[in-house]
């Protein structure tokens, strides 16, 4: 089961922070700067977890998940959505796309790492 992690995030300073925490914890980390890049990376099938920002230029986080779901892409990675807006705002989309894991920004880096570790322990979506 792949433990490789992809972060899809257009804010460089969040990406650097996540990279700092994950690589220090010995985790394999790749950064996609926008939704399209994330979509293309995910389709290589090498990632077990995608940390996906919602608000990105071009293809946003929800569009990436919807596109993969529409294509019935497998192996579908575990998804951890990131958003600065309240989860309530996105509950409908999350339910529709079967997304269960959500981290609100700004996050505590240690809590982010613990959440990532927890999600990585779950089985991959079927």
């Amino acid at each position, binding site marked *: 089961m792949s433990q490789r992690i992809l972060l899809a995030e257009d*804010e*460089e*300073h*969040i990406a*650097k*922070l996540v990279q*700092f925490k994950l690589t220090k914890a010995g985790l394999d980390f790749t950064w996609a700067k926008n939704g399209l890049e994330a979509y293309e990376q995910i389709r290589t099938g090498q990632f077990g977890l995608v940390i996906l920002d919602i*608000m990105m230029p071009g293809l946003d986080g929800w569009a990436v998940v919807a596109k993969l779901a529409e294509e019935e892409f497998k192996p579908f990675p575990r998804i951890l959505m990131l958003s*600065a*807006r309240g989860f309530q705002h996105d509950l409908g989309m999350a339910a529709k796309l079967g997304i269960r894991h959500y981290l609100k*920004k*700004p*996050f*505590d*880096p*240690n*809590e982010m790492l613990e959440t990532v570790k927890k999600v990585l322990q779950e089985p991959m979506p079927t």
Partner: protein
Amino acid sequence: MSPAEKDPEFEQLRQEYHAALGKRAQETQAVLGSLSTNPVEVDGADWTRILYIAHKTAGLAATYDMPHLTDLCAALDDGMLGFKEKQNAQVPGTSFQAWCRLLHEALVYGSQGKDPVHLEIPELRG
């Protein structure tokens, strides 16, 4: 948030973030400059850019010990978005100018590593 990381690498990231806030302050200054010559009309690109800066700043400032900057930018982000959605009309240039000015001042403070607690969280009425 957890107590600040006492890691030189984390501190380096913090300094880089402060520098980035300085660059964002320069962008807001540029928008204010164009508004000063034509305060009535709000340029769509300027609106989008200011909203983006507020949104992205809200999503990270508190992680680097500036929670008030997060709250202020989140209020601007939510308020501006809500204003546009409800009003469905041209936003008054004078209102946009005031929001830009507030964001600019907050970013200047943030670029110095200071949380702009003296600035009141705005209530944007749409």
